[in-house]
């Protein structure tokens, strides 16, 4: 494994662990974008990350931020800050950190899966979707240039059991927000409180082009469910997705829009692919010949 030379990918913040992963004084070794790194917990709330060379000797120190139940670092000069997600600061929110899950596919296949409502009836049958209601109503997608994020709004889908707190079927409203090539989040209708939204993030640690760790921190409005049951719900959903994700061909994301066939329900995915292509990123894509 060698570190990528993709300058766009190198200039992003990526997750590499979570606070409390090791006791104070402890460390863990991991890989980001092909680069071996070591993260050390130097105090209760303080972490340091260094690159490691092939012999395991620490090299240069990398920037670190601990936010949204994750430790983030970057291998280069980040061209954008970490996104602002205000829900994580609301006092009555339950912050749920469910660790990470390994998935062998490109980071962008993960982002697209997270963004996708059309698979709910088939992959999350009787939980996030039902086979009698498969239609994806049209929704809006925009590139918010001031923050360079992609937002999909006015999304809705019928869900038999939308969350741990749900007691029956409901029309769930979603807003999706792609914050970087390696991070996306959604806001979804809270059961019993239509004025508020659960915030669920997906931060991807690309170890290599088709070897990712997925972190899914959540800031939920749910005073009732146990943390364990909320994690279990999320993991059940994610393991169903993983079977799909690891069996898409090719694993690398085709950015050529004619390589796969989208429909209207995929307008979010199409916008995402166009945005990736315009950014010049090629790490994790099948466009390397052109790079």
């Amino acid at each position: 494994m060698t570190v990528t030379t993709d300058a766009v990918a190198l200039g992003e913040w990526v997750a590499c662990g979570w606070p409390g992963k090791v006791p104070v004084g402890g460390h863990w070794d991991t890989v980001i974008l092909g680069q071996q790194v070591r993260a050390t917990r130097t105090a209760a709330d303080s972490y340091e990350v260094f690159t490691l060379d092939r012999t395991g000797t620490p090299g240069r120190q990398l920037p670190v931020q601990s936010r949204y139940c994750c430790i983030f670092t970057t291998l280069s000069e980040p061209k954008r800050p970490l996104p602002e997600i205000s829900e994580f600061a609301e006092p009555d929110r339950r912050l749920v950190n469910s660790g990470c899950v390994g998935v062998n596919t490109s980071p962008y296949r993960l982002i697209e899966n997270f963004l996708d409502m059309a698979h709910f009836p088939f992959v999350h049958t009787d939980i996030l979707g039902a086979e009698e209601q498969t239609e994806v109503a049209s929704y809006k997608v925009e590139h918010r240039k001031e923050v360079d994020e992609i937002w999909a709004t006015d999304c809705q889908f019928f869900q038999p059991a939308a969350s741990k707190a749900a007691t029956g079927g409901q029309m769930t409203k979603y807003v999706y927000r792609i914050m970087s090539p390696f991070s996306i989040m959604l806001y979804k209708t809270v059961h019993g409180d239509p004025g508020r939204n659960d915030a669920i993030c997906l931060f991807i640690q690309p170890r290599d082009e088709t070897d990712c760790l997925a972190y899914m921190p959540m800031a939920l409005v749910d005073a009732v469910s146990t943390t364990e049951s909320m994690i279990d719900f999320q993991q059940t959903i994610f393991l169903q997705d993983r079977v799909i994700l690891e069996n898409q061909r090719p694993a690398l994301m085709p950015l050529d829009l004619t390589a796969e066939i989208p429909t209207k329900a995929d307008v979010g995915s199409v916008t995402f692919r166009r945005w990736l292509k315009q950014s010049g990123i090629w790490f994790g894509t099948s466009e390397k010949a052109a790079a």
Partner: protein
Amino acid sequence: MDRSLFRANARLEKARLAVVLGDVEAGRREMQQSQHDAAGARDCWIAVGLDAQIRPQSSHPVIVAGRELALWRGETGPAKVWDDQCPHRGMRLSFGFVRDGTLRCLYHGWGYGEDGRCVSIPAHPELAPPKTICAGAHAVATKYGIIWSNLSAARAATVPEIPAVTDWRPVRSLYIHRSAAVVLAGIAAFDYGAPAEPATPAADVYVVTLGAQTQLLLALQPVEANKTGVHIASSGVDATADRLALVRQMHSLRDAIEAGTGPSR
């Protein structure tokens, strides 16, 4: 990681049973086809499975020379061989499920008819799918109880002719961790316990005549550089005890080839 994938698969299996939808059958776009031919599909028929093993309403992964295929069958009719890739977002169609004569992709439920054409897109129930959306269907023939496929676009070759025998019965499919060439040599060197008259009616097809009555047909499927499938049919072996003995003998054929010990019972 493997264990959790198993769990995930088990959960998915349950979800799959709960789905009340059709099947997906995929054909293939012209462009994909020419790409694959450029990648070297030879104009020849390759055995991909025993017809009796592919149950109605099922889809299975098959690999021919490194190329991933989905082998599936509707409620009735012959098996189909398609590229193991949904035109929509690339999901393997061997994970699909069959309903109403169509193969349905597990990811978003797109349904493909027997000719490969997309006939339903559940996200847009009112929409008639454009005719251009097509899964990658390959030529298939069922003969001697074996399913054969030709992955090239030329399709001038014919399915290997084996004269005289009409009552082939399926025996077993074996998968041997050796190259097709080594497997073929092993089949030729094997001691079948009776004077054997071998014939090779086509490349990768071996017919062994044992005495006056018995014939074995062994058809090879190159899987990967070091893995070969052998689909076996027999003629003249009908008593249950004889068939069981034949299966045991074929397992010892596999063991002998993998052990690399040459001739053995």
